[in-house]
């Protein structure tokens, strides 16, 4: 659920609770007002009934006076009561109109009063006027007494019922007020609890993740880009956390890219440095010969054979320079255009023998042995390029076994592929340099230990072998020696398979 939705719900709940509390308050007030109204009406009802009773007793008094005096003036209170009676009765009837029980009582009272005033007294008065001797203390007086007693009793009952009703209404109002106050208090308490709870939930679900995001942002600013926030928090806060994490992800990715670019730049910088050091050494040595001998020839006199000998050296060294330059250009060309092969049938047996003789002549300390399973050993390839590769491997085998010793060249033919291995018993390749051996200009610590070379031989060799559809690799034990091998598609196979069944290196 989103945070906005939660807040909306919480606010709505609060509004309902506050509304309920207000309603309870209104209820209490209205109950109280109703009780007051009822009480006031009861007072009116009792007052009206007292006035009515007074009229009845006025009527009785007037009538009793007349029976004694027989004077018409004695009837005055009776006459006055009789005139006011209907109005008083209507007032009382109106006051109790909405209470069936009291209305019934008023009805009974009305008929009794009518019975007494109109049906009992009214017919007796003319009778008493006409016959003054009529014994007044006999039956009529008794009958009137019992009727007024009955009316008095009804009045008392009526008033006592009215008082009871008023008291009940007051109790009821009190109970309702009490209930409303209790309900109101509970609702207000619940509202306060809800507000507090809401505050806590807000603090926890918003405050905590936001604090975490803020401190995370600081740590990321400090370079700790691998930092991720736990993906918690409702709705928008969760979105913030996710956005934060994806931002960190992007930053980290960018930094990785930058680091990779830096590494590339460092690598190209290293290659430039290597190139400078190779040029300064590899080119300066033959150049030193050329310059030294020419200076000598210009400054001093030598007999013709000596001069000729020195010129021969100058020529050879100049050619060496040209060959080095050619190597650099070769790499440049191969990198940009690939290897251009002039493919034909090549007898590797002849090629290996020639190269071995060439290099054996250059290093009397080394013994070169060529061991072939069959002659001729035919492959399809560029003879010059293949000679370049084999020459590179032999030259490396000699250079990296400075103490001399045996260099073995072996070959195996599976029909599908021909494998050639050149094994030396030299220093071997340190484990940490093995992965970079085929990198252009990489020479490990060869430069520092005085081993000459451009760092181009293996890089170019690999390009050539791969252009032939073959592969090149090595096995090396530091201190024990190195075996470089290459596999070329054999006379029967179009493409070579890297199935190395024949283990000739070891």
């Amino acid at each position, binding site marked *: 659920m989103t945070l906005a939705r939660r807040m909306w719900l919480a606010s709505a709940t609060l509004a309902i609770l506050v509304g309920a509390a207000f309603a309870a308050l209104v209820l209490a007030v209205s109950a109280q007002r109703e009780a007051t109204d009822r009480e006031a009406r009861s007072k009116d009802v009792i007052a009206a009934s007292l006035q009515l009773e007074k009229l009845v007793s006025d009527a009785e008094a007037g009538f009793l006076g007349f029976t004694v005096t027989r004077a018409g003036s004695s009837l005055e209170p009776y006459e006055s009561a009789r005139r006011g009676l209907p109005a008083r009765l209507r007032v009382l009837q109106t006051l109790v109109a909405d209470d069936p029980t009291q209305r019934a009582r008023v009805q009974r009272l009305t008929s009794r009063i009518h019975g007494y005033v109109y049906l009992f007294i009214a017919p007796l008065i003319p009778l008493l006027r006409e016959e003054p001797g009529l014994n007044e203390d006999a039956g009529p007086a008794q009958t009137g007494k019992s009727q007024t007693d009955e009316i008095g009793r009804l009045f008392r009952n009526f008033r006592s019922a009215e008082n009871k009703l008023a008291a009940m209404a007051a109790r009821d109002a009190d109970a309702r007020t009490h209930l409303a106050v209790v309900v109101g208090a509970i609702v207000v308490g619940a509202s306060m609890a809800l507000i507090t709870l809401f505050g806590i939930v807000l603090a926890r679900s918003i405050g905590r993740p936001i604090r975490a995001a803020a401190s995370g942002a600081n740590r990321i600013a400090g370079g700790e880009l691998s930092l991720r926030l736990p993906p918690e928090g409702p709705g928008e806060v969760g979105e913030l956390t996710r956005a934060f994490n994806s931002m960190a992800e992007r930053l980290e990715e960018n930094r990785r890219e930058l680091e990779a670019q830096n590494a590339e730049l460092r690598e190209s910088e290293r290659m430039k440095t290597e190139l400078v050091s190779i040029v*300064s*050494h590899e080119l*300066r*040595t*033959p*150049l*030193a*010969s*050329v*310059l*030294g*001998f020419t*200076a*000598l020839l210009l*400054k*001093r006199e030598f007999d013709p054979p000596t001069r000729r000998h*020195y010129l021969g*050296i100058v020529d*050879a*060294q100049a050619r060496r320079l040209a060959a080095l330059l050619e190597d650099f250009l070769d790499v440049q060309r191969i990198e940009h255009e690939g290897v251009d092969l002039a493919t034909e049938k090549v007898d590797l047996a002849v090629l290996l023998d020639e190269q071995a003789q060439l290099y054996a002549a250059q290093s009397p300390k080394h013994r070169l042995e060529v061991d072939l399973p069959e002659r001729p050993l035919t492959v399809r390839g560029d003879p010059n390029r293949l000679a370049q590769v084999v020459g590179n491997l032999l030259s490396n085998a000699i*250079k990296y076994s*400075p*103490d001399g010793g045996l260099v073995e060249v072996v070959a195996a033919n599976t029909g599908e592929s021909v494998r050639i291995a050149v094994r030396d018993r030299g220093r071997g390749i340190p484990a940490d340099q093995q992965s970079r051996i085929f990198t252009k200009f990489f020479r490990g610590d060869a430069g*520092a*230990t*005085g*081993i*000459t070379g451009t760092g181009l031989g293996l890089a170019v060799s690999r390009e050539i072998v791969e252009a032939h559809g073959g592969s090149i690799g090595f096995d090396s034990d530091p201190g024990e020696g190195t075996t470089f091998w290459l596999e070329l598609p054999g006379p029967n196979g179009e493409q070579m398979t890297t199935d190395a069944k024949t283990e000739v290196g070891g």
Partner: protein
Amino acid sequence: MERIERQPEFDPAPATILVCDDDASLRELVRAVLGPRYRFVEAADGVEALTLARELHPDLIVLDVMLPALSGIEVLEALRLDDELRSLPVVVITAWAHAEVDAQLAGADRFVSKPFDPDDLSAAVEELLA
């Protein structure tokens, strides 16, 4: 040519110079520059140079810095730690910019930078052997 004629007057036995360089053409250049008045022994790497120095006690060594097996600097250090070879004059030939400083620390007597002027090398060797 004049000097060669004069040389036997002061030193009837020709001085032996150990030339150490991994490049054969540069060894030959050193021999050609210094001329026939000296006897030359050649070494192609550092180990060979040190072995020959101990065996033959040459009068002077012309030493290249970039050598296989044992660098020129290491050879020089080994020589200076050897009681018998400590005072042996050494001319260091270097094509390596920083080597000059290192060789100086190890106690080379003269430096000739590669490519070198024939007269500079001759002068350095003659001065040390005078």
